[in-house]
C-alpha cells in the first residue's frame, strides 16, 4: 500500500519550492545586475572592485 499523502506532499513541496526558488534566484540576479549597471554608468571599473 502506497502512502498517497506522502506523494501528494512531495509534489506540492517540489512545485512551490521550485517556483519560490525561481523568484529568489531572479531577485538575486536582478540586484547584482543593477549594482553592475550603476557602477558601469558611474565609470567604475568592475574588475578592480
Amino acid at each position: 500500500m502506497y502512502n498517497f499523502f506522502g506523494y501528494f506532499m512531495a509534489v506540492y513541496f517540489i512545485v512551490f519550492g521550485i517556483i519560490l526558488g525561481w523568484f529568489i534566484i531572479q531577485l538575486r540576479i536582478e540586484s547584482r545586475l543593477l549594482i553592475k549597471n550603476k557602477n558601469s554608468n558611474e565609470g567604475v571599473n568592475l574588475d578592480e572592485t
Partner: protein
Amino acid sequence: MKPFFNNKTNRSGLVLIAAMMLFNVWNVIMNTPMVPEQHWAQKIFYVHVPSAWVGFLSYFVVMVAGILFFMKKDDYWDLVGLAAAEIGTVFMSLVLITGPIWAKPIWGKPWIWEPRLTTTLILFLIYIGYFMMRTFGGHIERVKRYAAAVGIIAFVDVPIIFVSVKFWTPEIQSHPQVEMAQQPADILIPFLLSLSIFTLLYVLMLKYRIHVIRINSRVRANV
C-alpha cells in the same frame, strides 16, 4: 532601470497571485473530492496539469516571438523568446518530475515509454538543445536566428503531445482517455481555477524574466 518590484503594479500583482495560490492549495486540500483508488495522490492533478499547460503556453509564446523576430527583425522578440523558453523549461521540468511521482503509486512504476510521456520528454530535450545552441552557437546574431527557428519548429511537438492519447493505439497508452469536460463539477471547477492562477503566475514570471534579461543586455552593452 529600477527593480521590478519597485513598480506598484508588479508588487500588487505578486501579492495578489501569492494570495490566490494559497487559496488554490487550501481549496484543493479542503474542497476537492477524494477519488477512491488514488486518494491524496489524485490531488497532484491540480498542479501537474496546470504546470504542463503553462509549459505549453510558454513554448507557444516562444513560437510567436520567433515569428515576430523574423518579421520585425527586432531584438526585443529574441529576448521574449529566451525568457519564455526558460520559464517553459522550468515548468516542463516540473511536469517531468511530478509526473513520475504521481505515476509510481498509480501505475506501479514511475516511467512508462508510452506516447504522451515520450513526446513530452522529446519536447524537453529539444529545449535542452535550444539552450545548448544559445550558449555554444557562435556568433550572437546567428544564434538569435537559429533560436527563433528552433522555437518555431519545436512547437510542432505540442499538438502531437495533446493528440498522442488518441493518435496512437489504446493498447500502448497509460494516460486515461477522459475528456476534461466530462469531469464532475467538484473536480472541474477547482481545476480551472488552478489553471487560471498558474496562468497569471506565468504572466508575472514572464514579465519579470524579460525585465531581468533586459538589464543583463544593458550591462553587457555598457561593459
